[in-house]
């Protein structure tokens, strides 16, 4: 019954136009960024590498598809959470708004099956969205700009060899899926609490903004809670572009995110199982 319920949920998710907002946005944005970097990316690097360019000459295809994919990853990462909440936030609350809880829950499926199938459908949507971002960024980037070393410009510059790149991207996108699934899980939990779709979307974005601010402010007061905030770990994908990779930090961040996912799913399940359907 779970497979049937999941298929029904996916059919519903992908029948709504709002589901495709994220995909359309990516499809429009990524080519624009790739073309812009193709035209003027050299200036970006010149500014960032000017210290080194005084002492060194750089050869090779620095402004390549891999580097651009990395840049796009960092740029879109801030905005994908909003796209994710559009679907996850509507998952349960949308049924209440439209009055279709009654239709669903007078079928011979358990509430656990109903909630789980909706949760899985939301997670599948997130994975497909991130995968699309990966395909567009890497595929279009490599097509337009070719391959080469990845130049990671953070507090220091890391140049990753061309043959050392793809596995990092694979793991980074997997980590991004985990991060976005965590955001979707928070939205899903909010969706179980209210009976309109807008509330969970706005609430989830507010949580992300507040937690991100707390993570960024360097106050001792926040030191103890910062490691617990899921937003503090969402950027763990960047660790995969360090040399060497700090696997313990990656594992810690992944565990915190997975823990948040499990907690949000569990809480939503308990809430829906116990609630009276009055809409």
């Amino acid at each position: 019954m779970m497979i049937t319920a999941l298929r029904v949920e996916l059919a519903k998710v992908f029948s709504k136009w709002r589901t495709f907002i994220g995909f359309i946005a990516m499809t429009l944005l990524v080519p624009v960024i790739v073309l812009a970097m193709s035209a003027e990316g050299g200036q970006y690097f010149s500014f960032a590498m000017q210290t080194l360019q005084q002492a060194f000459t750089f050869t090779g295809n620095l402004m390549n598809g891999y580097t651009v994919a990395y840049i796009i990853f960092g740029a879109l990462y801030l905005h994908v959470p909003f796209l994710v909440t559009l679907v996850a936030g509507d998952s349960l609350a949308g049924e209440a708004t439209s009055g279709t809880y009654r239709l669903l829950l007078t079928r011979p499926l358990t509430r656990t099956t109903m909630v789980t199938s909706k949760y899985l459908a939301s997670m599948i949507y997130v994975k497909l969205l991130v995968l699309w971002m990966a395909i567009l960024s890497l595929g279009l980037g490599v097509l337009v700009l070719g391959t080469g070393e990845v130049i990671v410009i953070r507090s220091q510059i890391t140049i990753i060899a061309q043959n050392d790149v793809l596995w990092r991207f694979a793991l980074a996108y997997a980590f991004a899926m985990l991060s976005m699934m965590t955001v979707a899980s928070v939205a899903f939990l909010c969706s179980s609490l209210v009976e309109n779709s807008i509330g969970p979307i706005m609430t989830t974005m507010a949580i992300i903004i507040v937690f991100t601010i707390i993570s960024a402010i360097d106050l001792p007061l926040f030191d103890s809670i910062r490691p617990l905030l899921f937003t503090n770990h969402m950027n763990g994908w960047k660790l995969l572009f360090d040399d060497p990779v700090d696997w313990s930090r990656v594992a810690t961040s992944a565990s915190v995110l997975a823990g948040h996912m499990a907690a949000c799913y569990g809480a939503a399940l308990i809430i829906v199982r116990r609630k009276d359907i009055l809409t």
Partner: protein
Amino acid sequence: MPVITVRGLHKSYGDFHAVNGIDLTVEQGDVYGFLGPNGAGKSTTIRMMLSLVKPTSGTVALFDKPLTTHREEILRRVGAIVERPDFYNYLTAYRNLELLGRLSRADVSTASIMRVLGIVGLDTRAHDKVKTFSHGMKQRLGIAQALLHDPDLIVLDEPTTGLDPQGMKDIRELILSLSADHRKTVFLSSHILPEVELTATRMIVINRGKTIVEGSVQDLLNAGRLRVTIETDRPHDAVTALGTTPFAGRINGMTERALILMLDRNEIAGVVHHLDQHGLAIHGVVPVRSLEEYFLSLVREAS
């Protein structure tokens, strides 16, 4: 075997008792009328019967199985409309039935879906999005989704609301057919009392969360006062003749050729005899009990 057995059903929200001790039994093949004024607890009771709401206390058993422990097994055999029929407006009627039917493990073949849509008169609108449907069309679609998986028990909450007279007649005949020809059990809640009167075999009336009466429709309607139409050419003279009797206050109406009184069954003969004594020719006596009158009287008394 009773199809629905409800015992001591209670539902409280804080100090407010929405359902306050309801018992009912529905036998197989019954068309069971569920009546009560607004706020009586009908919706809450139906939701508890379908596991949408958890009872504060009491038991619900369907097909002789407790709902709490056999929910999925039971609901496979139940089709329901609860209050207004809401669907996924962004999907077509066909797609709604297909997806909901899958969850009910119904036959979701094109033939099967088109069959139920044909029953409710929506086969020509199968591939239109539900958001373009009128309320009456959604009502029909609601009945279609309740029937798709060929359930043994059909729970209909206000099924004819928003339908035109032809639509109401179609639904009424459908209900009767389901019961008589297919041995389905129908649990029918409606405000349109003549419809219930024409279809229900048994009924319950509740008010303020409590049972007022339960039983066979005919038995309930035959008990107590009847609306008696006495056919005569001189109804004015009949009124005069009854003026000195206690029945003067029972006169309920008059037409050109009849006088209408509210009488107990055992009073009819006495009234006819009195009129005959006054030289009035009586052409016919028609004792009728309308559900609407019965219902209103019950509710008034209970209040």
